[in-house]
């Protein structure tokens, strides 16, 4: 930690896939919009001068098929790394360039699930939902190939986002473990079966994956649990899943939670002993007349000394935060937590909800805001 600046910066995970990547990996030639996009970002990030120069050249020449889907995905991953690094982030990943999305991608790596069809999230937005229909098994750990690429190409320290066991269970139907109970499936029965489901995913799929990643050189792992706050009475299951997934593994763990009432998760979260950092969303709930960061008093109330990954960018609005607002959010948090060295600075959540241009502008504002805060808190520089 000694080499890190005060208020080190990180991202949270996903990034919108560039149009050139989507077209390119389908083997389609780039249209004018995709070509423009590639040119603009190449100027900024100099992708055509790097290890994937040949792929850039093929895409520019309309030879997507010749470039190959795998190489285009590699270029997408490299793009995300350079995108984050160019802003000055201290921890980076590949923008989840190779994943479909955080749920479906993980479930497709496991045995014991069957996709059932689409469920409406809201309006005309849907997600594909699977049922756990058998024993959870993993043919081989996942995320290893993407990590290997990141490890070879990242200039900053990689932080791997992995969807947590509780979220994978909560976003699936629990058929198998429930079917092993007899009689009417009341609340208590469902809870007990859900506990089994969460722990089995953690033990049989997540832990082997995390162990393999650590063996491959990963040091920093972020467990994503966006579903953590969905059922306040299941906060203990979130923790049980986390503990089972990380059992006996020596790495630096954080847990990302968003759009939840964090108060509902205490005191259960205190038992996630191997979790060093909470990376939470705050900016989305921060308004002139309502302090979105006041909830951090919770950590003081419960004597929770962990680091905080402070969400300072709202990923659901195009409006770019000013550096002054970012600095103010940091200042308010230091006032609550006391020690500025407990803070990491990040967006609320994955940036895939915003265009690449907007996301970049937000990250630049974040970096400038951090500079302002560093000047202010220089005496307590780590």
């Amino acid at each position, binding site marked *: 930690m000694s080499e890190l600046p005060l208020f080190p910066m990180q991202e949270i995970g996903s990034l919108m896939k560039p149009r050139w990547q989507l077209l390119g990996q389908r083997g389609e030639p780039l249209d004018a919009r995709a070509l423009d996009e590639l040119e603009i970002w190449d100027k900024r990030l100099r992708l055509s001068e790097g290890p994937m120069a040949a792929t850039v050249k093929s895409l520019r020449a309309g030879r997507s098929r010749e470039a190959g889907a795998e190489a285009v995905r590699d270029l997408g991953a490299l793009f995300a790394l350079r995108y984050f690094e160019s802003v000055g982030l201290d921890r980076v990943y590949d923008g989840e360039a190779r994943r479909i999305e955080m749920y479906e991608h993980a479930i497709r790596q496991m045995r014991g699930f069957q996709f059932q069809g689409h469920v*409406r999230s*809201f*309006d005309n937005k849907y*997600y594909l939902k699977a049922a756990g229909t058998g024993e959870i098994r993993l043919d081989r750990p996942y995320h290893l190939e993407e990590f290997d690429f990141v490890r070879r190409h990242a200039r900053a320290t990689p932080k791997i986002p992995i969807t947590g066991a509780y979220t994978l269970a909560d976003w699936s139907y629990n058929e198998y473990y429930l079917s092993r109970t007899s009689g*009417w499936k009341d609340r208590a029965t469902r809870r007990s079966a859900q506990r089994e489901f969460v722990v089995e995913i953690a033990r049989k799929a997540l832990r082997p994956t995390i162990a393999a990643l650590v063996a491959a050189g990963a040091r920093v792992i972020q467990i994503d649990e966006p579903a953590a706050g969905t059922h306040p009475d299941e906060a203990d299951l979130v923790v049980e899943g986390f503990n089972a997934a990380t059992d006996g593994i020596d790495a630096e763990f954080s847990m990302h939670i968003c759009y939840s009432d964090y108060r509902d998760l205490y005191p259960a979260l205190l038992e996630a002993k191997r979790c060093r950092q909470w990376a939470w969303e705050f900016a989305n709930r921060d308004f002139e007349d309502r302090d979105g960061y006041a909830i951090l008093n919770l950590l003081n109330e419960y004597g929770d000394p962990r680091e905080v990954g402070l969400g300072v960018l709202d990923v659901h609005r195009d409006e770019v935060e000013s550096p002054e607002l970012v600095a103010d959010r940091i200042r308010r948090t230091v006032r609550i937590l006391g020690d500025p060295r407990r803070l990491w600075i990040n967006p609320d959540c994955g940036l895939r909800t915003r265009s690449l241009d907007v996301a970049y502008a937000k990250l630049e504002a974040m970096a400038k805001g951090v500079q302002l805060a560093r000047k202010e808190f220089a005496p307590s520089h780590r």
Partner: protein
Amino acid sequence: MQLHTGLASVFPRSEALVAATRDFDRGRTTADALEELYARTETEVLALEERLGFDTRTAGYLRWQDLFRPFAETWDGFTVGPVTRWFQTNTFFRRPVLHTPPERRPGEFAARLPKPLTGAGAATAKVLLPGPYTFAGLLDNRSGEPDSALIHRIGRLLAEEVKELRGKGYRTFQFQEPLLADRPPEGVAAESVLAAYQSVAHQLSGGTSIVWTYHGDGAAVAPLLARLSVGVVGVDLAETDVAKLPIALEHKGIGLGVVDPRTTLVEEAGEVARIVRSVRDRLHPSSIWLSNGAPIDLLPWEPATRKLHVLPAARQLLAGPDGGGRS
């Protein structure tokens, strides 16, 4: 005792409709093509309801984006607000924002009902409506009107909708009240809920009103449910222990949400029949309405269809002269 079966919520969109609505949003299909598919899928849902022998028909309410949208878009005073989590689920609704006391525009909600339910279809249709307590409780009230007064006002407006629809031949009205079970009202709010349903009762003129609770323990709010001026009160059996339903509900119509859309596991008809018998023998209800508990669109189309088959199967088990045996 009469036994009814039917849907208690919006039905999931078919995979074809999922693809078409997505394509429409991305400009890849036309409004006409989407409309044609909606109509065809409504017919499919109606055919499924007929095949399963349901007593009431819904045609799926497939066009509704959420429970409140048909009102937030047709009543004055509203705008459609931010995406908000729907109880303890991974689904969301757009929270209505109320700027001034609401006013209805006659005829506009009726036009949002599925077309197969209009005309001759009205007599067997089940009209879905948000319950006044849930509607008032989940909207963002910036109108200045106190929440308890708003419950009653929304109840009066819904009563006017019921009156208009009775004139068009509709008979069965189901009010979705998950908030009653999730956060039972007390004091003035509870009195407002009673008054709201009193307003509805005045406009029913022989029709049937149902209050359907879910996403919470129906037994906890049962004393209030027993006092509501409605014909049937429904509870979600995934959340409610039927043995704890109080005797105060005796002789009322009881809705039993026996199909749990939180799991793809299909309920056993024998188990459902056993529960129905226990309710029948203890509470002597005037009628029992078997249905899904929480909204069935928490499931995709195929497993939803598969699970609903338990309703006719249970009905068959209960069809004997003494209701298929004792509990």
